[in-house]
């Protein structure tokens, strides 16, 4: 049953071009991050009539700039992409009536949620793989090779971080009856996570801290964020459980 639901979800992502757009954005992010890190200072220096001495303050780009650019771009575009990809998946099925058609068949309602979540997480994993490979290659050419193992651990931490947004968006989509309500819920979740992440001390335990940990791993720093990893995992599990319970009890 889960196999059939997964096959339908993946085929839908492919047929509706969502998968292509998703991968293309991650590929562009992976290529553009080291390129921007390398050439932005040179572009700034080339601006005509730059005040005297200012060019001396523009630093020479390093590997750390490439990593910082990669993290910033992947987080920003990744969060937007996973929310846009996920926020309507369940609400749309309810609104259009396809959920009613599906749920009269012998399928578990939790399996429907799980199939959508697994599809989203697999897409995200594939996107980060494309993103990471592009970044690895361009960084090696423009700067120096990134530490391979640490860089992929950074990407795993990004997967968990972005997975929180994906699961919260899926939960919003399941709680809502319309796509508009689902969108409001998903972006509301984003705002709440941003606010919680900016609160001193509490922010250190929020999923956003995982990017700093990943960066530190690559650049041989000493930051860790185990509490943030635990909180992120707990948020994913909680949002999934809420989504499953809601659909199990909902009248379609």
């Amino acid at each position, binding site marked *: *049953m889960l*196999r*059939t639901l997964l*096959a*339908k979800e993946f*085929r*839908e992502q492919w*047929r*509706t071009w969502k998968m292509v757009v998703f991968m293309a954005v991650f590929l562009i992010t992976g290529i553009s991050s080291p390129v921007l890190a390398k050439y932005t200072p040179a572009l700034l220096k080339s601006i005509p009539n730059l005040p005297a001495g200012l060019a001396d303050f523009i630093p020479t780009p390093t590997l750390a700039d490439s990593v910082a650019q990669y993290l910033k771009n992947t987080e920003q575009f990744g969060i937007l992409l996973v929310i846009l990809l996920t926020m309507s998946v369940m609400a749309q099925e309810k609104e*259009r*009536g*396809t959920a*009613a*058609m599906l*749920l*009269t*068949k*012998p*399928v578990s309602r939790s399996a429907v949620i799980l199939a959508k979540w697994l599809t989203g997480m697999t897409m995200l994993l594939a996107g980060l793989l494309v993103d990471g490979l592009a970044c690895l290659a361009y960084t090696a050419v423009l700067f120096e090779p990134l530490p391979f193992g640490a860089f992929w651990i950074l990407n795993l931490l990004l997967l968990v971080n972005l997975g929180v947004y994906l699961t919260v968006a899926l939960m919003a989509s399941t709680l809502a009856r319309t796509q508009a309500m689902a969108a409001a819920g998903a972006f509301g979740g984003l705002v709440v996570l941003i606010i919680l992440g900016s609160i001193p001390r509490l922010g250190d335990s929020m999923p956003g801290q995982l990017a700093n940990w990943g960066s530190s791993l690559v650049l041989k720093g000493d930051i860790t964020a185990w509490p943030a990893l635990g909180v992120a995992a707990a948020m994913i599990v909680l949002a999934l459980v809420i989504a499953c319970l809601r659909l199990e009890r909902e*009248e*379609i």
Partner: protein
Amino acid sequence: MIRIENLVKTYGSVRALDGLSLNVKPGVVYGFLGPNGAGKTTSMRILSGLARPDSGRAWIMGKEIGKPGSDVRSLIGVLPEEPAFYGWMTPREYLRDFVAPLYAMRGQVAARRADELLEIVGLQEAANRRISGFSRGMRQRMGLAQALVHEPMILLLDEPVSALDPAGRKEVLDLIETLRGKTTILLSTHILADVERVCDVVGIIARGRMVVQARRDDLLTRYVTPLFEIETDNGFGNWLEWVGKQAFVIHVTVSGQTARVLVKDISMAQKALLESLAGEAISVRRFEMVHPSLEDVFLRLTGKEA
């Protein structure tokens, strides 16, 4: 086969089902008849597991709906009033790759069944077209096909022919005829001619309650009260108001220049009706005693008066 006892379901202040009970025996085509808002779709949704009753119980093949461990969904095929599909799929993909595997049918078995059903519902020529471009009628045929994939013992059809043209209606009703005896069918509709044509048993529901439940022929016999059909050239004027108040009149319906008057006492009615029509100077083209149709019975029982 299907049993419902005292189902109650409210949506806010609206009581959609108000103690509905019914009983459908194996192999029959049961016409679930009622005006819009009578509770037909709500009953279907409860039977198919999409909604829960506030109180009351329902069983399908002895399994109580909503009870843990008694999932009836593999026993039933459901066609909702407005079937919805994934528009990016083709009908063949939908049946073969999506619906059939949900009933553990895969590979050649699923492919064969999908092609068979597409032929039965007349969609073989559109088998590889995207469903998003389908008309409402084509979607309804597709809905019927998906309900039949696993050859269910029970079919719940909510207004299965309402979106079809006359030819499509005939085809679907013919298909329902072929399932008679093999599959138990609960068919909700407001098209009385269809019920009269295919249903063995009729349940008439109004305001969430069962008004009457009987074999179609028994129902017509039971309510075979005398009925006069009167056709005029110049309308009825105030006569309709007068006739509706007479003690010997049970029910009056009007369609254009024709009135159908159900009465208790033939001889008294015949005399009084003719005299009153003459007294009102109504130009009568036809005055005839006829047998009531299911529509007359339905309108009488659901309280719709002229």
